[in-house]
């Protein structure tokens, strides 16, 4: 089985932290999502595009093996095939916004869910609900959560996954915007998990879930 090395489409920021390569196009999407003037329909459109880019890049981190096929013209083509045994897990509520992006790339992938809410008084993240595929401990997990501000929610979610037998190194956290603080605390807590994001910036669009689902 070939191992994944980093590629030009994303940069490595420290061990196990990857950021999509910044292009004008990516910056535009990030700008639209931050702009207070953006309409909800534009917001959803751009969010979906950004999610798709993150998901596509996330899938590049999955294991594969070589495969040779014959083309319709009768010639051989040396390609690769992806290993089976992956699944997605979304952290409710805003992580669910990323499910469609994953579905659009992997039509029949299994998707688990975790509901985590912060206690109003202690700001402590608490797990209310979790439902995973039965054999999750054997799978690679694409954990989806768009905005990491403190990182507490993601840390809790990884904790839950580990309690269900998932190896930390088998978890890939897909997110859109991450603060440097969250990167630090998540990697300290779970050093073997990989984080993939589109941007590390002190100000993250905290309104993401509300605007995406229209509950603002």
């Amino acid at each position, binding site marked *: 089985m070939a191992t994944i090395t980093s590629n030009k489409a994303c940069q490595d920021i420290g061990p196990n932290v990857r950021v999509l390569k910044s292009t004008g196009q990516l910056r535009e999407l990030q700008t639209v999502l931050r702009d207070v003037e953006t309409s909800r329909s534009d917001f959803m459109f751009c969010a979906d595009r950004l999610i798709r880019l993150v998901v596509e890049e996330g899938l*590049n981190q999955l294991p594969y093996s070589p495969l040779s096929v014959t083309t319709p013209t009768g010639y051989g083509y040396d390609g690769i095939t992806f290993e089976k045994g992956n699944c997605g897990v979304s952290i409710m509520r805003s992580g669910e916004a990323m499910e469609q992006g994953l579905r659009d790339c992997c039509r029949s992938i299994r998707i688990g869910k975790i509901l985590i809410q912060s206690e109003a008084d202690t700001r402590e993240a608490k797990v209310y609900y979790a439902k995973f595929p039965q054999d999750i401990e054997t799978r690679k997990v694409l954990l989806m959560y768009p905005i990491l501000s403190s990182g507490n929610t993601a840390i809790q979610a990884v904790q839950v996954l580990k309690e269900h037998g998932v190896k930390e190194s088998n978890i890939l956290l897909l997110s859109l915007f991450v603060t440097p603080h969250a990167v630090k605390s998540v990697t300290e807590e779970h050093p073997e998990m990989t984080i993939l994001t589109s941007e590390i910036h002190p100000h993250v669009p905290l309104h993401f879930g509300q605007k995406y689902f229209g509950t603002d």
Partner: protein
Amino acid sequence: MRTGTVTRDLKTNNMLHKCGVPLTPGDSCANCRLSNTNMADTAKEASFSLSNSERTSRSSSQGSGSASGDDPFGDQMSQGDHQAAMRRASRTRTQSTSDIKVLRTSKRTIYTAGRPPWFDVKGQFKEAFVIGICGGSASGKTTVANKIIEALDVPWVVQLSMDSFYKVLTPEEKELANQSDYNFDHPDAFDFELLFDTLKKLKRGRNVEVPIYDFTTHSRTKQQHTLYGANVIIFEGILTFVNPEVRKMLDMKVFVDTDSDIRLARRLRRDIMERNRDLVGVLKQYDKFVKPAFEQHIEPSMAHADIVVPRGGENEVAIDLIIRHVHSELEKRDVHFRSQLAAAGQGQPLPSSLHVLESTPQVRGMHTIIRNRETNRDEFIFYSKRLMRLLIEQAMAMLPFKTVKVKTPQGSTYEGMRFNWKRLCGVSILRAGETMEPALCAVCKDIRLGKILIQTNLSTGEPELHYLRLPKNISEDHVFLMDATVSTGAAAIMAIRVLLDHDVQEENIFFLSMLMAESGVQSVAYAFPKVKILATAVDPEVNDKYHIIPGIGNFGDRYFGTD
């Protein structure tokens, strides 16, 4: 009621015959006139010189009876038995000099041959051949023009009439015109500046907008004719040889010399019967303007003519001579394009204008699936679409952006980026390029889409342009030109040439393709070094059937399930 500038193809001419009225120049029965103008309309709509969407919904609703709804030729075919009969007639008699063919496959029929390459391997246009036809009023210029078009038997002929370039009249002049006191036969009545520019652009192969002159209001209508795609231009009018600048552009000058009595008789009949004018007025105008103008301006210009045709359209010998000359001129311009292309640029390093999608595991994995001949159509479509989406995202990232500051809902300011281009549009090369449209629409909301149909002529192997519809005012847009696979690059070069002919800037063109052969990359980059080429993969070879090796098979057939 002159029809002004109308591109005529065989259909139009056949239509004239259809009426059963012997066509003496400049006259026709009421029936014939009616069907003639109707047909001219249809021809106008069908001709792809009318590329812009100035047309009404009429053409799109006008699917032909025989063709299925998605047939790209649907609106090239006219309706009704009348036309069907005419089409059959045109099929049986177009086998002669040109290579107009009827291609019939089990599912589709193509009635017309497309326009063969009108440029060389460097993508440069060889000037169109311009035939100037001059002659007095009602001398039979139009008949001669029609006979030339008919005998030339190539679709890529455009007819330009001087009538389109009458100046717009002031209210006082209009009053004079209504009393037959305005001189329409003097050079001052024409807008020679516009005429010169239009003819010059047309000769260079550019897309032009020709005004439509309304003889009842003596002004230009809001609509314009779009003319594009001429290898031969027939330019006729009473004063075509008068302006020396215009004269220089004429490659062949034909003067139609008809006896003045006959011309007066025709003019009387036409003006009184068709334009509801009274005898006195017509005669007054003739005496005061038409006759003096002929003697002063038109008759002397005969000295510039290469050929003088006595008796006008009846003169078969003269027309035959003209045709032979034009054919020999056209042959000089003929190129064997594809074979030259396949040889060009072999062994060179790949050009810097090429941007191949980075070969990530996903890209390679998807290529493995869609290249595999065992892959079913469902999977083929799914993974093709995913790849296209990545390709288009990559192309979007290559557009220009500028730095902006925005306010966030949290109250802070964020320095980000916004696009810095006027407008983006997509143009797909039918059929396989169309498969990339959904991916483009998924990334760009409300994007305008154009279509170009280019097919390979099975007997010559040359690409031919069959159909063209581009968004309006495309010249300042950035254009994503899309085709699924490129082997020699012949179709790609033709499509890029079409865009350039519509004044799109070369550096604003992005050519997007799923799979290209190196030879195709080389020839496109050789012809148009400023065009940015993007592909999800580039294969090294093309076999003698122009198939890409190892390739992906026929992309369109696999995608649409027509294999």
